[in-house]
């Protein structure tokens, strides 16, 4: 028994000492990228294997897998260590980013192994967005490919400053220095424009381990570091405490009346009790009273720490706002220029509205201008009407509410955002803010004394926008006309906005492409909003084929003000009626982008009223609309006996 206690004590001591060592290690996050089959996954597998991070049972499973799916005959296929999805192993490709962890006596590493296929670029961007360094792999036999350029460009766009140019499969070109030198020259030629701080070229063979963790005897001509040596030694940008204080408020912690704290992660700078801080959006200032954590109040908190701040004064702060240094404030604006990477199959369309999210804030946003698209190969600026999947462009964005931000170049946390599709909730784009276009404070709404309510009250009505949507020839205008006549006879003040009429004037400059259709609806939506503001009951008769634009208009208006009426007439019936002879032309191919023929119509999912027109008279249909208006309190004092249907 006497011996047990000392052994325990020494084990404990050893472990404490070991942990103290661990705590001193820095953390490097990097990704591997490059074209398909350049050996990214193999390289990571090799790194894990050579740094003894593969457990015995994992190795046994790997040997099994290698025989089943491997591409190296009887040899171990290291890529199978990271290609964790069934589809990936079956197809022998990487689809999504995998995160792996390893450490050496000097550093801890988080690796993102990203896919090379162009179609999975968004997954590469996901891996790059949190990385400090990128290993760009190049197959020595292939040289620089399109994806090498694309990934280098995206890495630079996302603010990665350190590149390792790993020229892989060097064994397959007889360890040729000439080939290595040529590829390095090619790379430096185009990457010179991308603003990297360092580019370290290394010739290696991931499959056989040359220059991966130690210098290879096969390439005596190479004097540089092996990959792992470089990863261990590359200097990391230290958190710069000189940067101005930024604290995006994530959560307001209010357990009782005595405590009101603002929780968040410090995006840059430091904070201590007594510091003056300003609420970015309101400009109100206060002082930090306490920096609260469960482990006790702190004297000082730095970039990256998740804390709760209590202020001296009762100032209004909610999620999405920012507490900042008074002497160096972020921009607050509702219009700004940004670089944007597009992730969705469905193209980005200027004018369409998306949800913009920053780290803690959210606003409805519209791309007001696509200034240009950037060609991935030449980095040239090209004029464009839309951005397709995986394309990069420079845009102007306008948000409904101002947001607080810094340029991405000076702060990755407060200068980034994503765009979300309103209907599918998919993440469709990622943006990096360049600069604000004008200060939101200069565009205050003109406060008016006569309100919407008073204007409507004068007319004894409640303003509304009744939005008729449906195919061309479905009967929208006919029904809207009759409804307006009846409303007018009831003494209501109305106006009809009709698709064809508006296209003769306000929208005469627009055609029928998807982009123009979006802009068409945006303008009409804004006009309808102004008219509703004037107290009118507005009847809008527009094909308006896309759900997202109808939804955009709905959100422009106050709750309950937008009533969507789906005039549902089957395509065959519309084509048979063909009041303007348009279907005949479209079906002959004489009109392009005709809704229902070669341009889609997205039927409403939850309209306020669904009108099946076939076999119904216009009078009956109009009565249904009137009934809807009564139900929604748009008209009152109405004789219900005329609800003949």
């Amino acid at each position, binding site marked *: 028994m006497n011996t047990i206690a000392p052994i325990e004590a020494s084990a404990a001591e050893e472990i*404490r000492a070991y942990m103290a060592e661990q705590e*001193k290690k820095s953390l490097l996050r990097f990704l591997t990228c490059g074209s398909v089959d350049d050996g990214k996954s193999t390289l990571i597998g090799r790194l894990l294997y050579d740094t003894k991070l593969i457990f015995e049972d994992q190795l046994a499973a790997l040997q099994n897998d290698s025989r089943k799916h491997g591409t190296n005959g009887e040899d171990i296929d290291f890529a199978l260590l990271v290609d964790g999805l*069934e589809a990936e192993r079956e197809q022998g490709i990487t689809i999504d980013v*995998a995160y792996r962890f390893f450490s050496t006596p000097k550093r801890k590493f988080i690796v993102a192994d990203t896919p090379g296929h162009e179609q999975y670029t968004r997954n590469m961007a996901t891996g790059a967005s949190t990385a400090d360094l990128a290993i760009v792999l190049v197959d020595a036999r292939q040289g620089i490919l399109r994806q090498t350029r694309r990934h280098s460009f995206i890495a630079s766009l996302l603010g990665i400053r350190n590149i390792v140019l790993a020229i892989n499969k060097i064994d397959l070109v007889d360890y040729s220095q000439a080939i290595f030198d040529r590829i390095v020259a090619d790379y430096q030629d185009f990457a010179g424009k991308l603003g990297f701080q360092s580019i370290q070229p290394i010739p290696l063979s991931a499959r056989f381990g040359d220059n991966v963790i130690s210098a290879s005897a096969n390439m005596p001509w190479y004097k540089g570091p092996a990959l792992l040596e470089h990863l261990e030694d590359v200097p990391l940008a230290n958190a710069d405490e000189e940067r101005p204080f930024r604290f995006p408020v994530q959560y307001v912690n209010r357990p009782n009346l005595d405590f009101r704290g603002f929780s968040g*992660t410090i995006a840059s700078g430091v904070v201590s009790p007594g510091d003056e801080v300003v609420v970015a959006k309101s400009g109100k200032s206060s002082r930090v009273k306490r920096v609260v954590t469960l482990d006790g109040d702190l004297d000082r908190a730095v970039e990256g720490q998740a804390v709760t701040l209590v202020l001296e004064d009762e100032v209004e702060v909610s999620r999405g706002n920012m507490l900042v240094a008074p002497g160096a404030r972020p921009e607050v604006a509702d219009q700004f220029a940004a670089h944007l990477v597009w*992730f969705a199959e469905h193209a980005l369309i200027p004018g369409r509205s998306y949800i913009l999210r920053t780290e803690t804030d959210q606003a409805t946003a519209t791309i007001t201008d696509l200034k240009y698209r950037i060609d991935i190969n030449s980095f040239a600026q090209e004029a464009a009407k839309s951005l397709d999947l995986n394309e990069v462009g420079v845009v102007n964005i306008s948000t409904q509410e101002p947001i607080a931000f810094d340029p991405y170049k000076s702060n990755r946390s407060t200068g980034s955002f994503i765009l979300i599709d309103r209907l599918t*909730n998919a993440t469709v784009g990622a943006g990096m803010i360049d600069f604000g276009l004008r200060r939101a404070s200069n565009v205050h709404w003109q406060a008016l004394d006569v309100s919407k309510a008073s204007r409507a009250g004068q007319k004894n009505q409640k303003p509304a926008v009744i939005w008729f949507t449906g195919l061309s020839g479905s009967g929208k205008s006919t029904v809207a006309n009759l409804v307006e006549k009846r409303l007018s006879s009831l003494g209501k003040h109305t106006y009809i906005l009709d698709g064809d009429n508006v296209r003769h004037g306000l929208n005469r400059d627009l055609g029928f492409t998807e982009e123009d259709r979006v802009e068409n609806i945006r303008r009409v939506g804004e006009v309808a909003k102004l008219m509703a503001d004037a107290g009118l009951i507005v009847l809008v008769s527009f094909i308006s084929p896309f759900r997202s634009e109808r939804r955009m208009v709905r959100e422009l208006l106050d709750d309950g003000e937008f009533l969507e009426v789906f005039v549902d007439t089957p395509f065959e019936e519309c084509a048979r009626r063909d009041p303007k002879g348009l279907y005949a032309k479209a079906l002959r191919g004489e009109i392009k982008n005709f809704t229902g023929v070669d341009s889609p119509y997205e039927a409403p999912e939850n309209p306020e009223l669904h009108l099946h027109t076939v076999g119904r008279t216009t009078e009956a249909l109009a009565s249904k609309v009137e009934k809807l208006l009564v139900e929604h309190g748009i008209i009152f004092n109405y004789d219900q006996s005329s609800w003949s249907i």
Partner: protein
Amino acid sequence: MTKSLTHLQRLEAEAIHIFREVAATFAKPVMLYSIGKDSSVMLHLAMKAFYPAKPPFPFLHVDTTWKFKEMIAFRDSEAKRLGFDLLLHSNQEGIDQGISPFVHGSNTHTHIMKTVALRQALDKYGFDAAFGGARRDEEKSRAKERIFSFRNAQHSWDPKNQRPEMWKIYNTRVAKGESIRVFPISNWTELDVWQYILQENIPIVPLYYAARRPVVERDGMLIMRDDERMQLLPGEELQEKLVRFRTLGCYPLTGAIESDAVTLPEIVSEMLIARTSERQGRMIDKDEAGSMEKKKREGYF
């Protein structure tokens, strides 16, 4: 003076950020509490994230009725100590059918008593976000999963179509019936978890420490006989061995390892020289290749 955060401080801050993000943006979050060491760490992080308030969500334990008795005792004492809101759910149909890992095998048992039970509980309460303690270093398909991992209305994961996850900006939007599984300790390794437990002095189930326990050797694993439902097969014998567990689940599916580590430093030290991964002690992962991915697609955590 520049003082960078340590590795564990960074991981802790990231997890706290994620906890707060969910509390701020979801209508009805829940934390899946499975009682193991990762759950202990998650619980500790949740307490930190909302201090001085309590975590603004309940903790759900999906009880397969086959957990170690010591786990259940630990669960109840932690709920009492910290005062969190504990919800319990078991698949009653499964209980009525007498589903047993011994009779029906690990696959069927796990599917009915864990995956289906979890789906039932999520549907019953209408949770739109559920925290889990999964880590990317545990298994190949988990290494591929996002921190905010989208599930459709059938609770299913589509690994080929995950939302991009840029920076620390999380897309938390879901339609009715859909939900997000959230993994705040995605970027932690097993070693990080143990180091953090040691650093923060976090209570864990005593089964992680070595003690003499009654075990049976079966299918190459040491299974602890936690109650009489485990029948000995011909040729098997119950032995007292000095063992501990690296991972905890249903006792018939969880293999013990022989060990004399009775303190946290000893456990960490043992870990450092371990040559097998912790999931090796789990039968469910070995049923078939890609089995974790398959289970996740069906709604398993």
